[in-house]
């Protein structure tokens, strides 16, 4: 399962990531040599989303991957042999100041998530963490989550479509939160915060085969990853700086962005809440087996 088996030589490890700010720790960790010092030659491969990374990890092309938690729950409940190795990123847990937000136009009559009944909300992917979280916000605000309509729209297009009135609300992450703010948009909810305190948004994972075939490498990777997460969490300025190297976000925007939290360990109750919500929303065919998935 490891591409490089020469004794003594560093293990080359392919990790599938998405070029968003959530994965700043692994880039930072790489630049800080947290991986090389554990004899891991880290090779970061950018993909468009978890849906492309999961198969690559299962088939062994990548040894590890980064994906949002709901995708992992769905994959796992469909029988894919996945194993989370460590946390990815969490919401800040601060209502009104998260790295993602449910937002409306400046002059929108919508004041709270409850007002979204019958309205259209843009989500970057449907039947996933975003719509589940937004429904949670609506529910929490006392509205009817079933009456909210979702339309799939990639993040980059959301600010413009919100502005032109094609959608009533958007759920955006950084840097698009800044873009909506810049055009006068308002936050009406921090949905990730509404789901659960310290919601686990994403995590790093590997396959069961990898885990049983090369437990030592998994262990070393997990250690390095945890060190990276901790470092990024405590050095936000360096994290901001590294984001500029693998994305094309303008520096002035990077400076203003709200960063997520990067705890090293998975917040199991939050995942449980998420899994229950996903089951309720029909995303999962059957209840997820968290013991199999989580470390």
């Amino acid at each position, binding site marked *: 399962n490891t591409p490089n088996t020469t004794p003594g030589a560093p293990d080359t490890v392919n990790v599938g990531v998405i070029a968003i700010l959530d994965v700043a720790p692994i880039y930072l960790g790489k630049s800080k040599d947290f991986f090389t010092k554990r004899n891991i030659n880290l090779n970061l*491969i950018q993909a468009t989303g978890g849906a492309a990374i999961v198969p690559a990890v299962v088939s062994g092309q990548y040894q590890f991957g980064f994906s949002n938690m709901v995708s992992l729950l769905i994959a796992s409940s469909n029988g894919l042999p996945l194993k989370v190795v460590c946390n990815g990123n969490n919401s800040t847990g601060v209502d009104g100041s998260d790295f993602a937000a449910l937002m409306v136009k400046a002059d929108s009559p919508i004041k709270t998530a409850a007002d979204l009944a019958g309205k259209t909300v843009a989500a970057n992917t449907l039947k996933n963490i975003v719509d589940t979280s937004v429904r949670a916000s609506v529910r929490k605000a006392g509205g009817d989550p079933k009456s909210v309509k979702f339309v799939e729209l990639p993040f980059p297009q959301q600010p413009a479509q919100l502005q032109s009135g094609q959608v009533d609300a958007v759920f955006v992450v950084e840097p698009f939160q800044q873009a909506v703010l810049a055009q006068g948009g308002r936050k009406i909810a921090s949905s990730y915060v509404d789901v659960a305190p310290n919601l686990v948004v994403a995590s790093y994972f590997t396959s069961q085969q990898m885990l049983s075939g090369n437990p030592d490498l998994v262990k070393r990777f997990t250690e390095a990853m945890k060190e990276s997460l901790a470092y990024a969490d405590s050095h936000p300025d360096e994290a901001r700086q590294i984001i500029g190297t693998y994305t094309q976000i303008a520096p002035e925007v990077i400076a203003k962005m709200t960063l997520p939290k990067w705890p090293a360990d998975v917040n199991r109750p939050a995942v449980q809440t998420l899994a229950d919500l996903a089951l309720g929303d029909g995303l999962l065919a059957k209840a997820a087996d968290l013991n199999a998935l989580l470390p």
Partner: protein
Amino acid sequence: MSRALWGLAGLAIFAALGEALPRLGLISPLYAPPLSRILSLLGDQVQQPRFWTATVDTLKTWALGLLIAVVAGVVLGVAIGAVPVLRAATASTIEFLRPIPSVALIPLVSLLYGATITSTLVLVVYASFWQVLVQVLHGVADVDPVAHDTARAYRLGRWARVRYLFWPTALPYAVTGVRLAASVALILAITGELLIGSPGLGREIGNAQDSGAVPQMYALVIVTGLIGLAANLFARMAERRVLAWHPAIRGEVPV
């Protein structure tokens, strides 16, 4: 020569529009920045190795995919076309497989191969293969009966017939097929990169979009357009050399 000048004039007018429309506020410069801005960003891009890696990746996928498709298409096309039984037996299958849109394979290949060059390559090969195959089949079917009789009367063997009769007859069709395939292949290479996330210009475009970097995105889009333009010019040139004897090439009839 004056043709080329006209063409350049056309490009110049187009460029001028690209500059003027955003400047005059007819299009929001936020979403469609003026051309000069895009070009200056393009100037920055070309100094970065990352840009060149992406370009080379795209070109590699494109060229390799095209090559595989052309070789497979031509070989299969001539083989199937030259044997009537084979042609009859495969006709329905080809008619069925051909219209399956290559993007239908995107979810499949991204599952099977992940965000790798292989994924995009499969798409490119699949899409361009049919263009070549169908053209070559048409071409072989178009063999002149008199020429065929001539070959048989002079006892040309099967191989000689393929070499001197079927192949030259099919060649103009094949060249057209290759030209069509080249542009389809480029489009799918970039689409694949954009949607699957395999390395290349397409992914860079996706990246620029995800970062909200609109001018960068346009700069890359222009690069893809230019590559397409160059590929087409190149294909036309090759056509002129290979098909010097063909009526369409040897005398251009003025309208």
